[in-house]
């Protein structure tokens, strides 16, 4: 078979040319942090099943500088994820109609952000309430 279409357009650094693309890459890049965070929790669960000594070693590793740096970056990426998730929500969900009128995009975005704040506060309050 003859080789066809051998030219590949270079893609290096295309996201640096325009701030819109940079934010797109931040948004998509949050997936790496979400995945690694899930794996950290999964590791914790695995260490938990191995007993107290193993679990305490996992907890100690969370207090290491590299883990703390990762989690600070991850917190920023998760917040970016929250903001972008609700920003695109009017495009990713079906139209919502109330009284025959389409709910404006900005209302949906704001409702999502308010829901995130409410969930965050509620979770933190319940967490403080149930832990010593």
């Amino acid at each position, binding site marked *: 078979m003859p080789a066809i279409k051998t030219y*590949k357009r*270079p*893609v*290096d650094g295309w*996201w640096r040319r325009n701030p819109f693309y940079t934010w797109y*890459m931040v948004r*998509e*890049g*949050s*997936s*790496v*942090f*979400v*995945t*690694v*965070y*899930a*794996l*950290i*929790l*999964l590791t*914790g*669960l*695995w260490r*938990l*099943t191995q007993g*107290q000594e193993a*679990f*305490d070693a996992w*907890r100690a590793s*969370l*207090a290491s500088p590299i*883990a*703390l740096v*990762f*989690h*600070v970056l*991850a*917190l920023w990426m*998760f*917040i970016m*994820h*929250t903001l972008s*998730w*609700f920003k695109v929500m009017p495009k*990713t969900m079906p139209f919502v109609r109330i009284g025959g009128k389409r709910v404006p995009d900005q209302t949906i975005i704001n409702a*999502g952000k308010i*829901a*995130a704040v409410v*969930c*965050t506060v509620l*979770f*933190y309050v319940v*967490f*403080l309430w149930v*832990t*010593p």
Partner: protein
Amino acid sequence: MKRSNKPIFWSLFGGGGMLAALFGPILVFITGIAVPLGLGASKDAMSYQNVLALAQNGLGKIALFLVITLFLFHGCHRMYHFVHDFGVHVTPAMKAAFHGFAALGSLAALVLLIRVG
């Protein structure tokens, strides 16, 4: 026509994305910053006894399972599309690898949550 598996993976992606958008930041703050540093939370909040009690509780099991599996499926699905932005040509085998990784992690979470009692 062969049925598309897209709705399944998109639902898992969407569910994980919503869970991460609503609870992700506070989860990362608590488990990764507040508790390890004892800043805004007690260092003992994630003691062996506390986390064991959470993992042995029915609702706690469901919460842990949902967070781990949905975050994995959300992250892996998005990373699969993300590599294309770096000029990597994606293939069905890569799609299977990314989703398979999330599925394996989920299976591990399930087994561990059963084994923890």
